[in-house]
């Protein structure tokens, strides 16, 4: 059988990913995680001395803490299998990427293992997050300077 013929056969046999179902699951699980995040944020604003602008940091820390617990219990990967991007895109997904790498590489020691591999998966998120934040800020600065929008 020729390569092209086989690739045709492969296309016919392989089930198409259920995009619509995946998108729906990601939407609802992702939305649910964000709703929890919103509740945590309100909690810090109501019970502590945080404003909408400053509640972000403790909220992120709390959400990553939840992700850590779920990852340690082996539950986050199950949520991930169900929700796909729904649990990968929120900050809990970032926490899961960092913590799963830390657990995985514990056997190689704290410095070379955990330290060296902590950002193995999340490193590119940090890098491109910082780079895109820079460009977004730059664009906004230009727009403010020429008077299109204000800070």
């Amino acid at each position, binding site marked *: 059988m020729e390569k092209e013929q086989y690739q045709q*056969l492969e296309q016919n046999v392989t089930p198409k990913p259920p995009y619509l179902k995946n998108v729906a699951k990601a939407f609802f699980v992702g939305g649910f995680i964000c709703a929890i995040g919103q509740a945590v944020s309100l909690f810090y604003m109501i019970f502590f001395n945080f404003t909408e602008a400053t509640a972000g940091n403790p909220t992120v820390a709390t959400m990553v803490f939840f992700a850590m617990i779920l990852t340690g219990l082996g539950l986050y990967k199950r949520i991930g299998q169900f929700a796909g991007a729904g649990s990968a895109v929120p900050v809990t997904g970032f926490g899961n990427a960092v913590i799963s790498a830390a657990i995985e590489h514990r056997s190689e020691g704290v410095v070379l293992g955990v330290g060296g591999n902590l950002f193995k998966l999340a490193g590119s998120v940090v890098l491109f997050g910082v780079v895109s934040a820079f460009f977004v800020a730059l664009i906004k600065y230009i727009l403010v300077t020429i008077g299109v929008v204000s800070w």
Partner: protein
Amino acid sequence: MVIVFQSKPSLLAGGVVAGPLENRSVFSQYFDAVYDDERWQMKTNEQGHRKMIEEACEFAMKKMNIQNGDVEYLMGGDLVNQMTPTNFAARDLAIPFIGLFSACATSVSSVIIACLLTELGAANFSLAGASSQHNSIERQFRYPINYGAQKPQTAQWTVTAAGYALIGKHREEYPSIEAATIGKSIDYGMDDPFHMGAAMAPAAFQTIQAHLEQRNQKIYHYDLILTGDLGQLGLKLLKGMFVENGVKNEELTFLRDAGAEFYGQDEAFQSGASGAGCSAAVFFSYVLQQMRAGSYKRVLLVATGALLSPLSYQQGETIPCTAHAIEITMK
């Protein structure tokens, strides 16, 4: 490509041990031991992997009442970097050893080498097999175990199991190896590491075709043609290739796949099982026992292996695959 063994070396015994999740395997009743701890009470997954290999070898030797000192050669491999679990097991077993890497096809390539040594008169007993341990292989090829990435339906689950066979000179009352085919490295341009069945199916097809042609056989000459770890989709593709080649569907009922059947119809495992331990565990427990019981008289075992690495995948290479086959008969 086909080697015919005049002396017909025998598969005297098999030793198969598996991890806790493999309790859910339809083949688990045939395994020698299924452990509750996937690390075998060791500190790391890799040490547990090593321990598993040692125990599989010990089970095989115990069945023939022989000791490490009686075994001339150990042939085997796994999927961890530089194959340290097998190398370290060889250190503890203290048997002259060559590590072999044919990815998941090592379960058969090792048997072929052991048969050649037996045929040559160099070995009375040799151990051959392969193994995989889920955690240590996943971290090698994919993500950390607890990383929440979604696996597609085409993905397969790496089993935790070690299977080793004890090979010796021909004995009537044991399954014997009549011939073997060493497969080529086949690349049909598949590049998805989460769809290994599709990458490996053409290799299995070519090896089976070559074996049948050169042995002047048809599929129906066999009671069972069992591939290693194509998974449900890979098996479908393999059958599809045979159908396109003019083979009738009803002739393909004896064409089965260990990986497709390993975990039954459990959807948690997507397309089925994979890993060097998958084919080794099924071949050296279920198949050998069925042959000794007389259920199968002529069997073709075709172990399939995807010869990729995380590096080759990231560099955008396609996935070359191989398949090695042994023809086993029972009087």
